[in-house]
């Protein structure tokens, strides 16, 4: 097998697992209140800044061991991003629960603009970066070439997998997960049964933000650079992943993310890297036309 092909496959797998993490935020919010949270990409962007800030702070305090750095950064980023998710829901979406269909979408666009400009004003428009934390790689000889599997990539794959497994556990087996599923099925009935659905919706936003935060830490580790505009493109791609897997379905979001990541990597590695974003967006349009319910989603029956 061709070395480049395998290399792109691995790159795609890591990239895709991170897309999957962000896609979870889209898919859960869509599942529960039927709305596309356009600001979700920006939440990811904020978390990338938070990760870099936390790394800088920890380094300033003289912490240099990788596990401690990672643990500290993860906790800090996840908590603060979670608060972001909660605040956004509270300010921009909750007052619009009974409004027209367009209102929350436009409000989400507003939040997205606010977050971009806020990051730009407070941190400057320049690209930001973090140092490489995990040096070294495995090299595998494959046929004529070789494949490089950096430790960073391995870490990303493991962390993304653990994150998804934890979330699946929460949704499947805990009380919170049961409440989420019930609210998703029938919000009115769930609230009649004594579930505080407003609070569940808030939790869902926080969970989405936490997953985006995890993704933010991981992508920042992998690429090392980001700017205030980073959330926009990744946001659309993660949404593509969510639609590809079937919006509203958790395993779908993960599967969609991985498929999108791999196909994008292959496209950019083997065909043309300038047009890789065009490729992803075109994929989104094509899926929506030919299989709007996605891979694992159920076809929607309109309620008459």
């Amino acid at each position: 097998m061709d070395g480049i092909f395998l290399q792109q496959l691995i790159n795609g797998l890591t990239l895709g697992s991170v897309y999957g993490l962000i896609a979870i935020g889209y898919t859960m919010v869509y599942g529960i209140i039927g709305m596309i949270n356009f600001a979700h990409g920006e939440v990811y962007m904020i978390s990338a800044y938070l990760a870099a800030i936390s790394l800088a702070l920890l380094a300033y305090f003289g912490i240099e061991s990788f596990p401690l750095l990672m643990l500290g950064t993860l906790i800090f980023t996840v908590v603060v991003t979670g608060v972001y998710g909660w605040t956004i829901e509270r300010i921009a979406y909750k007052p619009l629960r009974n409004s027209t269909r367009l209102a929350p979408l436009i409000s989400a666009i507003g939040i997205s603009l606010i977050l971009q400009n806020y990051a730009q004003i407070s941190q400057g428009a320049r690209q930001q970066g973090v140092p490489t934390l995990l040096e070294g790689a495995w090299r595998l000889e494959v046929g004529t070439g070789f494949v490089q599997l950096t430790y960073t990539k391995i870490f990303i794959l493991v962390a993304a997998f653990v994150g998804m497994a934890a979330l699946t556990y929460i949704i499947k087996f805990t009380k919170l997960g049961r409440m989420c599923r019930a609210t998703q099925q029938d919000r009115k009935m769930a609230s009649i049964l004594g579930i505080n659905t407003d609070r569940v919706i808030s939790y869902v936003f926080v969970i989405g933000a936490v997953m985006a935060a995890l993704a933010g830490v991981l992508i920042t580790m992998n690429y090392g650079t980001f700017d205030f505009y980073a959330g926009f493109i990744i946001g659309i791609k993660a949404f593509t992943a969510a639609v590809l897997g079937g919006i509203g379905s958790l395993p779908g979001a993960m599967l969609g993310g991985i498929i999108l990541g791999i196909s994008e990597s292959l496209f950019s590695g083997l065909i043309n890297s300038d047009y890789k974003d065009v490729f992803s967006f075109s994929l989104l349009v094509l899926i929506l036309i030919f299989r709007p319910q996605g891979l694992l989603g159920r076809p929607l029956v309109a309620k008459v």
Partner: protein
Amino acid sequence: MSDEVILSVDNLMMQFGGIKALSDVSLKVRRNAIFALIGPNGAGKTTVFNCLTGFYKASGGKIELNLRGTRTNVIQLLGERFQAADFVSPRSFASRLYYKMFGGTHLVNRAGLARTFQNIRLFKEMSVVENLLVAQHMWVNRNLLAGVLNTKAYRQAESDALDHAFYWLEVVDLVDCANRLAGELSYGQQRRLEIARAMCTRPQIICLDEPAAGLNPQETEALSRMIRVLRDEHDLTVVLIEHDMGMVMSISDHIVVLDHGNVIAEGAPQEIRNNPTVIAAYLGADEEELA
């Protein structure tokens, strides 16, 4: 199918995922009749309705309308999956592609079937008259150029549409409300407006989904009179779902009873009233007891 039968349903089947909502429903509606569909909650009445009116695509069976002198296959209008045979015969391929691209619920209405909704669906932020004008969309002058230039023919068509709208407002006794927002009307008025709006599409069959729900006895009585007027004076066939047994028994010519997605009885009101299967279905008797 004789000309007398205006709507015929054969072996209608409907599945949602793994749930079978309708297993085998067949019925025939005669021209100029008042036809009632009854049954306990969850019997599949609304599903039948949604299949007839083209909102659901039936999983199996056949629905044929015989309106305005043509026979219409409702399921075909909604756009079917391509069959292997289509790739051999370009003509059937083209027709299926056409219905896949441009087909849909609206064609059922254009064939001459109108409906109302259980949970009233008016255009709440538009005026009462505008609601009726929208319903006449297919009958007015839709030429963009004529409208922008405000030509004589266009003004005439609009004026005719207004005449027609006010005619139906008179029938449902809402002329005084013509310039109010539809959302401001009382519940009973909204129900009547919905019927008037359906009538403005100039149908030959009207399907009423629980028209008496939420009405008081006087209003129900008035509604019954109106339904009879529609049938007698406007040459209309009425299909209705209703829970108010008094009303159903008094106005229907023919009743079909559904339970668990099957037709369990049909006939004139008198026969249905005394049918033991129907009574059992409503009172929830066990099937063993019936046998």
